């Protein structure tokens, strides 16, 4: 089986998991949740096999083009979702996250992103490419979990304080977002900023140059620093914190996509 057959199979499974997720969530069927959990595991296996196949074939890191990077981000999101489902329960956030994964997969497989392997330019020939990109994207996948939980938090209807059930559900979303940031933020710091600085120093002789991509990853980092601090102030916890988690992820997305297409800089190869 080729890389793309495996990828297509994973994609179909993810679609199914999304569908089952919404059915389970809307219909309140617990049994479906278990099925979709194991289904998503098998999807991850196929997806990993597809990426591994390409890596072995090309002999280079599986995130050197836009197609590869988006595909790897989708893979990381699946990983994060499975970890969260296993240890903390995603509940309502689950199916919405699967929707994002399906969207990322669709974007990756769109004809707008060329699929062929192109040889690495000299600047990218470094093992830091592996560390810098993979850890950043895995960190961002956890931040995506926080993004979805925060969006759901913001969109859930304001009900009277007497509705205890709804209040508990909201608090769960808030806690879910916090836990996701607690895992994703250190990974993002390590991958994007620290490994990024080490690599930049290795390649260009300076660890920081205020290049737009660098600045935007710093902005993303500052958003999450702000998120963590606002949770300590009573009046800010909840709605305002959730809004900041949403802005933080939008900033991460802009760092990933926007900077390449809209701003010029040194990071223009991916």
């Amino acid at each position, binding site marked *: 089986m080729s890389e793309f057959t495996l990828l297509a199979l994973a994609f179909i499974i993810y679609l199914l998991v999304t569908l089952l997720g919404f059915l389970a969530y809307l219909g309140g069927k617990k049994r479906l949740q278990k099925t979709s959990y194991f289904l998503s595991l098998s999807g991850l296996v196929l997806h990993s096999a597809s990426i591994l196949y390409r890596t072995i074939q090309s002999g280079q890191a599986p995130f050197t083009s836009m197609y590869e990077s988006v595909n790897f981000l989708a893979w990381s999101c699946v990983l994060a979702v499975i970890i969260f489902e296993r240890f903390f329960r995603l509940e309502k956030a689950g199916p919405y996250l699967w929707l994002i994964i399906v969207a990322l997969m669709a974007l990756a497989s769109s004809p707008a992103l060329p699929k062929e392997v192109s040889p690495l330019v000299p600047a990218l020939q*470094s093992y830091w490419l592996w560390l810098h990109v993979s850890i950043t994207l895995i960190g961002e996948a956890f931040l995506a979990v926080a993004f979805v939980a925060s969006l759901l938090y913001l969109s859930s209807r304001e009900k009277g304080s007497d509705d205890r059930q709804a209040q508990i559900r909201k608090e769960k979303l808030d806690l879910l977002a916090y836990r996701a940031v607690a895992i994703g933020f*250190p990974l993002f*710091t390590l991958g994007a900023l*620290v490994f990024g600085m080490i690599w930049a120093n290795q390649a260009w*002789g*300076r660890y920081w140059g205020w290049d737009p991509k660098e600045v935007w990853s710093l902005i993303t980092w*500052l958003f999450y620093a702000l998120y963590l601090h606002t949770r300590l*102030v009573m009046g*800010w916890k909840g709605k305002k914190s959730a809004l900041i988690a949403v802005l933080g992820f939008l900033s991460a997305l802009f760092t990933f996509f926007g*900077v390449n297409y809209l701003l010029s800089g040194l990071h223009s190869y991916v």
Partner: protein
Amino acid sequence: MRSTFGFLSSLRLTIFLLIAIIILAIIGTLIPQGQDIDFYRHQFPHLSSLIISLKLNHLYRSPLFLSLVFLFLLNLLFCTLKNLPLRFRRLKNSVDFTSEDRSLTGDRHLAVRLAEKLEKTPEKLRTELKKRRYQVKIIQKADQKLLLARKGLVGLFGTELVHLGLLVIILGGLASALFSERITLALSEGQSEEIMGKNFRLRLDKFITEFYPDGSVKDWKSLVSIIENDQVQLQKAIEVNHPLRYRGLGFYQTSYGYDWGRCRLSLELKFSEQDRKRVELSPGERLLLDQNLTIVVSSFIPDFQIDQLGQAFSRSAEPRNPAALVEVNQGGQQIFFGWIFYHYPEQSSFHRKTPLILEIRLLSFTAPQFSVLEASSDPGTNLVWIGSFLLLLGLMGSFYLPYRELKIIIRQPNPPLTIFYARKNRQSFLEEIERIIL
């Protein structure tokens, strides 16, 4: 004095600074940095005076941005000074029997409920806590027994480590801004250059460009020698991502170029279908073709372009549109004068003065390549690495190994007293405690 300290160490200031720095940093990516003043006048006619007066064209060095960073530095410092003693006190006071009111998890009801339901002996609790990687101590004093369980000591200092790390990183950045030095060395093969302030020379022995089968560049390699007192001390290949480090300096492969002044051109002169001559020469060199025919290339331009005044110039150093200005004289009479284009042999009539059957083609051109290396010394770098290490240690400690402390004081005949404290993720800590005690 007290209020200044309070303000500088406050969370409100932190939140304000984070928001302000985010906004300025975003502005810095929207306004192109480091351009001429005219560029801003042209591009942002209404905002240019604001941009220039606030120095937003060098935003990350502007007084506005730097003062925010300075305030941030003070905020970090004072916050750490405020909190560090509290952490040490917690570390010390944990063994205190009398510390009544330390259930900082905020759930006093739970504390009471747990204390009431506690039936397990301290010894049994100890084994269960140890299974969960707690360090457990049981201290007996008179008729009281204290069980102290805690884990994640790095996590206890997590926030402070993060803040100290950031402090060190910012200081490193300051050191870089003030003391870092960069020199650009452009060397052709065989050339060497004395490194300023250091007692050695760097010589480029060979410069190699490697290509992939599809023609794109695979690698640039500069084989260099370090020469000290006329002795070769070290030889190494510098590549992108593989710098040479020597005596506190880093040498990086940053660019390359062609030494067009020393290029060799190959020209074909066609007098008629049968009469063709091929010559090789460098710009400036006068060549005698036969008794009264001479040819000279007065200039060679790798990327030919004409400016507004009609002057020829090179748009770049890359051979994108190579052109040679050729002059042919016969018996003191100029019979040809004009630009010969490599890519457009048909259009060589440009500037031609003498209409003649003579046709000239530029067949090939070669120029020695030179390598551009950058030597840099940056005393801030090590501080940044130390700061990054502290930052990561603190983050990992805070979030992955958060500090958790559980104290149970058993005092007959009163019910036992439970006191617990967690720095992060209190919810899951409470769940864990419930599982252990009940």
